[in-house]
């Protein structure tokens, strides 16, 4: 019986734990409860992925009402894959979190922090698994509101303004999304994704539907920080507590990309919106601009968190570029990069969190000589950095390889060249870190520091090793990605 209830349990467990955390309050207990829940959700999502791979799409009716009258949960391969990414990152970040949170957040706010974390997880998982466009909005707001709060808990006062700006941009994005949903609803009378996908093609020429598409895309792009709409991201990532940065960088934008995938390939899949309206070209152009502009910005940053925040904007460019090819290989490359980038960025930000804990800052000057003083932490960060560049044997290589292949498939030589060229920029900014950590010596008067605590190092290295493992043997991830791309391109949810 439990097996059939898994899709809802996945989302409900963290949701129920959040109010319990609010009542319990003791930081230690709350952390243990949160840890437990995150690992359970991770196990559930793995089981679900197995089920989907074996038996195809899972549909779960909430309240026993059949769609489109009620809300249903729909889980196909992409969904299950993203679900695994989110819950895996959630559980690893939680394992890592205790010491870092104790150091960075006021003691009497810690239980609230974990409450927010659980809610954010609920929201993100809910977005991924839902099959209803309005329900998606509700869970989007749950995850957004809680992430605004988590960001504003950062120590620096600029965390507050960063959170405020994120709030304004995020709410605008959500409102745009809601306008788009309203227009679609107006023309079709339904909110269910599968139902919409059936009804839209017959009225795809209507100007209302085209406008709806535009508003949905802009709204979601605000959330996923596609290049000109990314302005909220660097500050938010820089001043948020380390744990929050690691979690959000690996999940929040990824889930927004997933929503974009749903809109473009599921809702408007049969209409082939990408080629039809020039959306493809716009997305592709923006993606490439993002890859370059953000990488160049990254090179000039002195704060390491900020540097990698800009690099995130660039990496989102790669993902969107993959999707905009609208070919099986391209979309698969996008999806697999979603996974790879989540691992890499989470590892890097967790590493920076270790450094913040021991050294007290993450500016480039704090890095001097750290390669010898915190060898394990630094090595893990460098492995992540190599992944960002796309060195063979790391995950980054796999995604870039498929991206380049997708470009060749469509005879877009220039784009293939641009992908390689932008990787050179990544070498530059990663090199700045490596140079500081290994080639410069620590200042004479530096206080002696020890390596990061074991619980943090452990989770950090799990991710670092994962980034190598999935780089050497990419068959599992790549097969899932190719499969999902295939289903996405050929008819959405069924």
């Amino acid at each position: 019986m439990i097996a059939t209830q898994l899709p809802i349990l996945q989302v409900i467990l963290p949701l129920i734990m959040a109010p319990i955390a609010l009542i319990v309050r003791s930081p230690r207990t709350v952390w243990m409860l949160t840890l437990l829940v995150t690992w359970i959700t991770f196990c559930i999502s793995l089981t679900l992925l197995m089920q989907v791979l074996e038996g195809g799409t899972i549909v779960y009716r909430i309240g026993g009402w059949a769609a489109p009258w009620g809300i249903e949960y729909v889980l196909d391969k992409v969904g299950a894959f993203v679900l695994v990414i989110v819950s895996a990152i959630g559980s690893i970040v939680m394992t890592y979190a205790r010491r870092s949170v104790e150091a960075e957040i006021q003691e009497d706010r810690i239980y609230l922090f974990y409450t927010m974390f659980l809610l954010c997880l609920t929201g993100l998982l809910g977005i991924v698994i839902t099959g209803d466009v309005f329900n998606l909005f509700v869970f989007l707001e749950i995850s957004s509101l809680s992430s605004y709060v988590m960001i504003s808990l950062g120590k620096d006062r600029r965390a507050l303004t960063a959170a405020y700006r994120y709030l304004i941009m995020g709410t605008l994005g959500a409102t745009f999304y809601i306008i788009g949903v309203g227009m679609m609803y107006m023309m079709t009378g339904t909110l269910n994704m599968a139902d919409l996908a059936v009804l839209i093609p017959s009225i795809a020429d209507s100007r209302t539907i085209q406008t709806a598409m535009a508003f949905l895309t802009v709204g979601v792009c605000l959330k996923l920080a596609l290049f000109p709409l990314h302005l909220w991201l660097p500050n938010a990532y820089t001043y948020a507590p380390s744990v929050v940065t690691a979690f959000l960088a690996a999940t929040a934008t990824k889930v927004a990309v997933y929503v974009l995938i749903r809109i473009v390939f599921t809702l408007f899949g049969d209409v082939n919106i990408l080629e039809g309206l020039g959306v493809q070209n716009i997305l592709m152009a923006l993606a490439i601009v993002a890859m370059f502009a953000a990488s160049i910005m990254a090179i000039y940053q002195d704060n390491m968190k900020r540097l990698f925040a800009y690099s995130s904007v660039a990496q989102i460019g790669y993902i969107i570029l993959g999707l905009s090819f609208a070919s099986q290989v391209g979309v698969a490359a996008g999806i697999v990069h979603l996974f790879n980038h989540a691992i890499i960025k989470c590892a890097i930000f967790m590493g920076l969190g270790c450094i913040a804990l021991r050294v007290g800052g993450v500016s480039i000057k704090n890095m001097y000589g750290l390669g010898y003083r915190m060898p394990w932490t630094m090595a893990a960060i460098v492995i992540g950095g190599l992944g960002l560049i796309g060195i063979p044997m790391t995950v980054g290589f796999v995604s870039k390889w498929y991206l380049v292949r997708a470009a060749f498939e469509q005879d877009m030589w220039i784009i293939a060249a641009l992908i390689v060229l932008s990787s050179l920029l990544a070498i530059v900014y990663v090199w700045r870190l490596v140079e500081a950590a290994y080639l410069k010596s620590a200042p004479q008067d530096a206080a002696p520091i020890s390596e990061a605590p074991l619980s943090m190092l452990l989770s950090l290295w799990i991710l670092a090793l994962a980034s190598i493992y999935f780089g050497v043997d990419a068959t599992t991830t790549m097969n899932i990605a190719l499969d999902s791309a295939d289903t996405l391109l050929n008819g959405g949810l069924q």
Partner: protein
Amino acid sequence: MAFTAYSLVRLHNLFAVVMLSGIYSLLAAVLYVVMDAVDVAFTEAAVGAGISTILMLGTLALTTRMDKENKLIDPVPLAIVTITGALLIYGTLDMPPYGDPSAPVHHHVGQYYIEKSGEQVGPPNIVTSVLASYRGYDTLGEVTVIFTAAAGVMALIGRSRRRKKKGDKT
């Protein structure tokens, strides 16, 4: 309503701005009644005109009452807004006219609720049936959002124990 909105852009006294935004909400509530959405009107009046106004006044008391002189017309935002508005109006061109009973929106899911909710769920108020049962999960999400906001406000400006101790001593 348009006049209220326009004044909102112009005014510099934040107190007046907050009051006007309350009036704006009330006007919207009246509109909802005209358009048969009694439940929504009830909520908007209680929330938009009541709770938000109280909260905003509280914030004003904690911050400041006047804002600085601002350029009324700022070209870049104005351009963005004009483009967005134009796009929206373009989008309306294919919409069914207001109140049209044959619009698709009234014939799919909405129609089903009107016909079936009485026998499937029970309550005569269809909005309640849909809210609590058919789309009960959305409402759970909504309650979670409220919960998040309250806990978030606690995290942001709730009294910390340290400060309380200081207060006790003085």
